[in-house]
């Protein structure tokens, strides 16, 4: 002890010990108390903020079904390839991964190497790869024993199994699955669902921490749409329209609307030319490519987006056009409804009518002479309707114009619906305006407005709301919402509607559009040709050809409006351009919808035979069907089943016409189209039969029997069995 510590040492040691143990340890304890207990929850929250990372979980976008639950748009599972450079340790692995992914995905290797050097743990290098490619990557990973560095994240890709079918209606989606056009836009929130979240604890480099801290908010998959659209009708209509557009050299596209006039359901809505929603940004049409090629480099991009925009534009609902003579059915309705005119009201057409200082000509320069309202409609006499219009007067005209829904949007559930363009906003118009308006000129409406207004005539006077979505269903098939909009109003009386329908039926039976008559069905129709004011080529007159029909007239099930913008073919008139596709479509649609036609012997001879579908049938069976119908089959090839036929199903050809049945890839020699113009109808049929071609004649005037136009040009090479539409008599007399 004496040798050990002294008292002073002990005292001083004591001071040191006290300071160290009591003072400092107390300070530290208080500090910890402050940090852990007083501000503990705040720091814990802050720590959580950096530890918890949320990963977006994509919902599956809803399916778009047609009315028979045929999927038109659906989402397939695809994968995004994510590179996680932070987990790639060695340069050799970087090299291996870059090389491997380069081989599988085709991404430049330098780019991959560069990305793998980055300090990151999440770099998407390829989006939406299909399962084949994904499997290749999985195989590559397992083969080279790569556990970290490449990650595959599930995603969805929009897929349209019917390719171009109804593309304008369906629209398409962008890279993030957002709707960019058509129904995809209109019902984006319904289809899109809700994004889910996977909240999980992540370490500082972004991988999962192994402790149990995971909270998943599952994505809510999008709901499904069931359309009123029928994909069978849609494909019938698209096929016909496409053919008509090509044959008539229609420059500015065309559209066809098929509706159920009773409830406004859209059964088909075809726009030519559409696009392929699977590749919405691809321009594949040779004509467009040609245009692009001739565009100077600096304007190329602008032109390209113009073309793409034009393709997406829904001509049937966005375009504004003069309805032309089709509007005369509205004029007749107003006249009857107001009691100003009846079927027997007499008009006298002298080939023109003077309004104020201007004379408006009838298309028949010599005049139709005295005729009643039915005759005026059947002959589409301009002066008759102009004088009817003058009787109605501007105010009442505008009232009915509004009542028929031309001055409001129809409310169709598609984006981009256009509005009308009237002479003035409040309905003021000059008498000369009224005169041209009476024949459907100088005011613009949309095709869907015209079709909807015509529905009112077909359904007994009710203005329906056209719509294309029937139901919204969840993934279990439960109907969440169904759409059955009530008629907007009664526009004309049921009686007026019936009387106008009768006049239109007569027009299709013996009037200007009698070649639209389908044996066995009661078709009511009216064609129209209107002058375009916004000309494509200045100085040249451009027209819009259209045709409206519905059937059966006693209880209309289907209403169809066909519309071709700027036909530059043999004829620009509504009847020759639009009746063949409309009639061919109707001819298929009506039986498809369960309205079976009953032909008699006479009708068969007179109106020809509807070509049956022989594809997929056994050769013997196909032969038998053809012979039974009175057609002459020619079998080409050595196969057992029919793979192709000319003419196509639904086309109408004369009794005893040729049908070429192909059973394999071999093809018959092509035939040069002869000149039919100027021949008698019977001679034309004989000539066609001898060459193995088919003839379908249409014409408005029974007196004149000479062929005035033919649908295919002379000396064009076509397949045997091709149908050539000819117009008998003066095709110009019907409007």
């Amino acid at each position: 002890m004496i040798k050990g510590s002294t008292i002073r040492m002990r005292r001083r040691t004591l001071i040191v010990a006290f300071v160290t143990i009591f003072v400092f340890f107390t300070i530290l304890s208080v500090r910890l108390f402050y940090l852990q207990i007083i501000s503990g929850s705040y720091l814990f929250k802050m720590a959580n903020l950096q530890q918890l990372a949320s990963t977006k979980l994509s919902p599956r976008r809803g399916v778009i079904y047609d009315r028979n639950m045929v999927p038109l748009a659906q989402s397939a599972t695809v994968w995004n390839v994510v590179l996680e450079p932070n987990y790639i340790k060695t340069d050799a692995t970087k090299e291996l991964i870059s090389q491997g992914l380069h081989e599988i995905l085709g991404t430049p290797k330098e780019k991959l190497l560069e990305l793998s050097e980055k300090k990151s743990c999440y770099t998407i290098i390829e989006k939406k790869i299909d399962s084949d490619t994904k499997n290749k990557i999985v195989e590559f990973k397992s083969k080279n024993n790569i556990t970290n560095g490449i990650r595959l994240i599930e995603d969805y890709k929009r897929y349209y199994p019917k390719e171009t079918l109804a593309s304008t209606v369906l629209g398409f989606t962008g890279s993030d699955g957002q709707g960019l056009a058509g129904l995809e836009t209109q019902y984006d929130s319904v289809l899109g669902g809700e994004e889910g979240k996977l909240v999980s604890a992540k370490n500082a480099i972004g991988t999962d921490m192994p402790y149990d801290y995971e909270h998943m908010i599952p994505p809510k998959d999008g709901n499904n749409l069931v359309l009123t659209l029928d994909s069978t009708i849609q494909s019938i209509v698209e096929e016909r329209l496409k053919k008509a557009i090509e044959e008539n050299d229609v420059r500015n596209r065309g559209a066809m609307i098929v509706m159920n006039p009773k409830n406004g359901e859209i059964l088909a809505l075809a726009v030519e030319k559409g696009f392929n929603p699977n590749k919405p940004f691809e321009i594949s049409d040779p004509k467009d490519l040609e245009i692009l090629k001739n565009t100077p480099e600096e304007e190329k991009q602008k032109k390209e987006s113009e073309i793409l925009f034009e393709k997406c534009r829904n001509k049937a609902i966005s375009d504004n056009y003069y309805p032309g003579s089709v509007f005369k059915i509205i004029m007749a309705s107003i006249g009857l409804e107001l009691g100003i005119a009846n079927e027997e009201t007499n008009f006298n057409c002298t080939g023109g009518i003077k309004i104020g200082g201007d004379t408006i000509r009838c298309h028949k320069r010599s005049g139709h002479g005295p005729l009643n309202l039915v005759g005026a409609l059947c002959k589409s006499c301009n002066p008759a309707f102009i004088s009817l219009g003058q009787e109605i007067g501007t105010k009442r005209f505008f009232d009915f114009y509004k009542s028929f829904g031309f001055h409001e949007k129809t409310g169709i559930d598609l984006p981009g619906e256009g509005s009308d363009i009237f002479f003035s906003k409040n309905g003021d118009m000059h008498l000369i305006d009224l005169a041209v308006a009476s024949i459907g000129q100088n005011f613009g409406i949309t095709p869907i407005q015209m079709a909807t207004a015509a529905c009112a005539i077909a359904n007994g006077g009710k203005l329906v709301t056209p719509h294309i979505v029937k139901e919204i269903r969840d993934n279990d098939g439960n109907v969440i919402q169904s759409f059955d909009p009530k008629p907007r109003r009664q526009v004309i009386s049921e009686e007026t509607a019936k009387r106008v329908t009768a006049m239109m039926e007569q027009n299709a039976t013996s009037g200007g559009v009698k070649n639209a008559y389908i044996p066995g069905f009661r078709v009511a129709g009216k064609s129209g040709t209107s002058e375009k004011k916004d000309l494509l080529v200045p100085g040249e007159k451009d027209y819009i050809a259209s045709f409206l029909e519905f059937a059966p007239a006693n209880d209309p099930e289907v209403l169809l409006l066909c519309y071709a913008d700027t036909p530059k073919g043999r004829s620009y008139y509504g009847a020759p351009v639009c009746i063949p596709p409309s009639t061919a479509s109707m001819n298929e649609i009506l039986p498809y919808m369960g309205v079976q036609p009953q032909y008699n012997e006479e009708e068969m001879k007179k109106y020809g035979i509807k070509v049956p579908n022989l594809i997929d049938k056994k050769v013997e069976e196909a032969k038998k069907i053809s012979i039974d119908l009175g057609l002459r089959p020619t079998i080409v090839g050595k196969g057992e089943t029919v793979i192709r036929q000319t003419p196509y199903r639904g086309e109408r050809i004369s009794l005893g016409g040729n049908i070429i049945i192909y059973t394999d890839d071999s093809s018959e020699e092509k035939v040069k189209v002869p000149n039919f113009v100027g021949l008698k109808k019977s001679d034309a049929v004989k000539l066609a039969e001898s060459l193995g071609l088919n003839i379908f004649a249409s014409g408005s005037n029974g007196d004149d029997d000479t062929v005035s136009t033919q649908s295919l040009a002379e000396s064009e090479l076509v397949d045997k069995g091709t149908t050539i539409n000819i117009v008998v008599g003066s095709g110009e007399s019907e409007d």
Partner: protein
Amino acid sequence: MFKKKNNDKSKIKPKGANLKPERYKKNKFKFRNIKIIGIKSGMDIPFMLLVLLLVAIGLVMMFSASYPNAFYLHHGDSFFFIRNQVIYAIIGILVMFGVSKFDYRNLKTLHIPILIISFIFLLIVLAMPPINGVRRWMQLGPIGFQPSEITKFSIILSFATIIDKNFEKMGTFRYGILPFLMIFIPAASLLALEPHISCTVIVILLAAIMLFIGGIKLRWFAYVLTPILAFLSYLVLFTNKLTYANSRIAGWLNPFDKSSGVDTWQTRQGLYAIGSGGIFGLGLGNSRQKYLFLPEPYNDFIFAVVCEELGFIGAVFILILFATLIWRGIVISIRAKDRFGTLLGLGITMQVGIQIILNIAVVSNTIPNTGISLPFFSYGGTSLLMLLAQMGIILAISRRSNLEKT
């Protein structure tokens, strides 16, 4: 209580001596019991048990804190760090018991060679390539260590020796100040050159405490402190030369202000960890901050992980263990048979105490961030080995102290 006890002993010496045998008989009895399981009698069992307990807790916490880093950054080998540490801990404990059997008084004669070796190392390390801008680490074959660890010990040893020798003349400048300055100034300068500010601070504090206990006149502290404080005030108030230190201070005051441009990541992550622990902690092994948020959580900031996993309760328990260890170290030292033993034991104990306090103060952002490891917890094999060897010296002192009869 402590004070009273000490006074009692110094005042009534014979009485105390008479009383003790009975008390130590009991102790001896205990020792015999423990002897059965192979521990040599004579050393201070509470201190030894505290050391072993701290080593054990330290290893568990070190493993918990290190395995995410080991897993993510060392190819999935979760045992990358702990394996090494356990080996050194085992060797260290054997060394500790070995050292405890030697007569620590022999160290007196070794103080000059050890001092010279430590200076040589300090000079060599300055010639080494810098790691992260500092030269603190030396590699001798497979063994890597910080020469500053040896410096600290050599200062303690030489100070204890010289104070013991000059004890009667400690009040004079020539014997009480000059020899110590001759050792201390070059040592502290070389450390500052590395630079190793935290170790320099520890050495300064250690020297001051030892001289204080050694009995120098208190005015010397005033002589030294006044110009230093004046100089520091000048630097802080009238210059911006201490930008490095200043930005540290800025980061210290606002660890959550990310806009200042000061890298406070480690401090911030440490505080998140401590705060996340709350009262009871997230449970052993459940720290989240150790998942690469906290840089090197097994190193200087291991106490943050301790706080996060064991909570305030666990942290305070460990603080109490540390305090008890220091207290016991002081008791052993103060009762050493000779002055040299007292000074050496106090020096070692205080070195451990200073490091613990500074480390926890840094981790809890009580003082600005500087690199100080936590004894018994932080990763580092050689430093653990040296720590345990020094604990062995304290045990050796305890064998000869007045705690024991013979």
